[in-house]
């Protein structure tokens, strides 16, 4: 139940975001914005699970499946991404269920869950690499340029179009986040994250609830991967799958704030802008310094703002917020 004021703020913010590319046309900045939106969506998808203590390092795998399955279907079978994306999402979802079910059934939690999912993203990365005859191996893959209908191929040269697509996807992510947040499932998952036995004793089907959120999160992440692929028109195992990408998601989500809807978005904005401006700032004059500073800042963020940037800021603003998350 959002207050009138907040609803209005959202509306105005959204209108401004939609209007932006028509007013401000700097292509490079739009490019960065599109990347931020797509990654924000991916991070939000991760945080759907992550906020409930389900720390997955397997999301690189889901993202990789989303990107590669879509691109492979297009290149090898000529299947439009409009079909390819749902197929890739189903594939990622199926994988999530196959790994998730035994994990949850056998009570694999904490470190163990983190590492099982880490192995999962390792597997996806290695499979993509090993099937190099189809996927181009470790140095990347490019979807074929559409010769015919751009819309059918989901390929657009125009940044504004991409910006609007990315905005819509991102908004979709935020809406889903809020939908889960206000559902009873959120309470169940919070309970599960604290004490599985006690949650079960309250009647919660622990395995099913975890599977549901995992499935949702995996589907969304695969979508993010596919959209990223369509936008960049180039993917490598390292940029869309594997452990590094998974870690990147965890980073951004936590740096932004895991427990607030816009946290992952803030995380994406900060990490991408930081990386970008550090790289440009240091340029080729001080090679390597950008990542050094980036790393130090990350460490400092996590030590001094453990709830994430947005989370900590909101906490400062309204100290008693935690008591009434449901109002």
């Amino acid at each position: 139940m959002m207050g009138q004021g907040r609803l209005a703020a959202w509306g105005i913010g959204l209108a401004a975001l939609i209007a932006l590319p028509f007013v401000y046309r700097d292509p490079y900045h739009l490019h960065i914005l599109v990347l931020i939106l797509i990654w924000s969506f991916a991070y939000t998808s991760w945080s759907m699970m992550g906020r409930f203590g389900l720390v997955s390092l397997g999301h690189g795998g889901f993202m990789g499946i989303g990107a590669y399955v879509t691109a492979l279907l297009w290149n090898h079978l000529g299947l439009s991404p409009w079909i390819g994306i749902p197929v890739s999402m189903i594939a990622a979802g199926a994988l999530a269920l196959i790994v998730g079910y035994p994990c949850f059934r056998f009570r694999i939690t904490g470190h163990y869950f983190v590492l099982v999912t880490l192995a999962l993203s390792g597997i996806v990365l290695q499979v993509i690499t090993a099937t190099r005859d189809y996927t181009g191996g470790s140095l990347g893959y490019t979807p074929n340029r559409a010769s015919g209908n751009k819309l059918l191929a989901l390929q657009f040269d125009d940044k504004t179009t991409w910006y609007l697509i990315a905005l819509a996807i991102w908004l979709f992510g935020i809406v889903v986040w809020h939908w889960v947040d206000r559902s009873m499932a959120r309470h169940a998952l919070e309970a599960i994250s604290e004490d599985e036995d006690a949650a079960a004793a309250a009647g919660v089907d622990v395995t099913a609830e975890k599977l549901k959120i995992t499935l949702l999160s995996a589907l969304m992440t695969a979508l993010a991967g596919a959209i990223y692929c369509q936008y960049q028109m180039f993917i490598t195992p390292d940029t869309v799958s594997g452990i590094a990408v998974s870690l990147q998601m965890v980073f951004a989500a936590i740096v932004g704030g895991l427990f607030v809807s816009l946290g992952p978005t803030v995380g994406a904005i900060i990490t991408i802008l930081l990386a970008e401006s550090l790289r440009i700032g240091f340029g080729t004059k001080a090679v390597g310094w950008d990542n050094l500073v980036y790393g130090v800042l990350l460490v400092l963020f996590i030590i001094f703002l453990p709830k994430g940037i947005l989370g900590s800021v909101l906490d400062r603003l309204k100290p008693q917020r935690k008591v009434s998350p449901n109002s």
Partner: protein
Amino acid sequence: MQAFLDVFDIYLLEAVINGILLGGVLALLALGLNLIFGVIDVTWICYAELVMIGMYAMYFMVQYYGVSYFIAAPFTVLLVALLGAALHYLVIAPLLMAPPINQLLATGGVLFVLQSFATVAFGIDFRNLGIRLPVLAFGDMNFSYARLLSFVAALVGMVAVYLFMTRTFTGTAIRAISQDRQIMALMGVDAKRIYLITSALGGALAGLAACLLVLQYDVHPFVGLSFGPITFLICVLGGLGNFIGGFIASFLFAEIISLGGLFSDLEWGYVLAFAFFIVMMFIRPAGLLARRR
């Protein structure tokens, strides 16, 4: 029959033994991590990067300043031990109360820092110690001396750490601290000190691994990425904090990688190893040697 002989030839045996030797390398890496991650339950995602720094230390001392290998090694162990203690003091200590995920992330940040520090300080070149150890040959089979050395070091290290952990007061305190940190003071234990000792010890083991790895691999800022994840999986597969389990898990992993790579593309070896890990998690979630719950 012919097909059978084609597969079960001398080269298969060589691959098996090479697997064992690779296992020694992995076991050596897993040893220190198992102490940190398995016993005191602190996540050092950047563990392999500490090894990388150690390898650079070896490289510079031996290659650049002409220090003999055996004199450089103890210095490297000491240096990485200090690094481990510093890592604890600066990054982990403020986060001891935070959820483990925050430790993971902070040390993940350190991973970036160490990688780019190496890039900035040592450059992007691949460095190589250039020490060429002799090779052991049995007929058509040949084995690396350097790997044999790692194997022995891992074995000795494992036994030493095991004895230390079970026989000494400090070892017992290290095992206890993850179970109930608050009441350590009631035992007269300075928890901070135990953490520092353990971190230094973990660092020292990483340093030891570095001394032996540098004989086999080029050093470059990203060398840690090749080993980090596998090392974590090994610790869990063997059972967190179980040194013997970790030792055995290293060999299982190495054999799968080695044999899988022999029969197909190299990556399939890793795919198999990871899949094996996931399946084992379901069958023996508490580690290889644990009894089923």
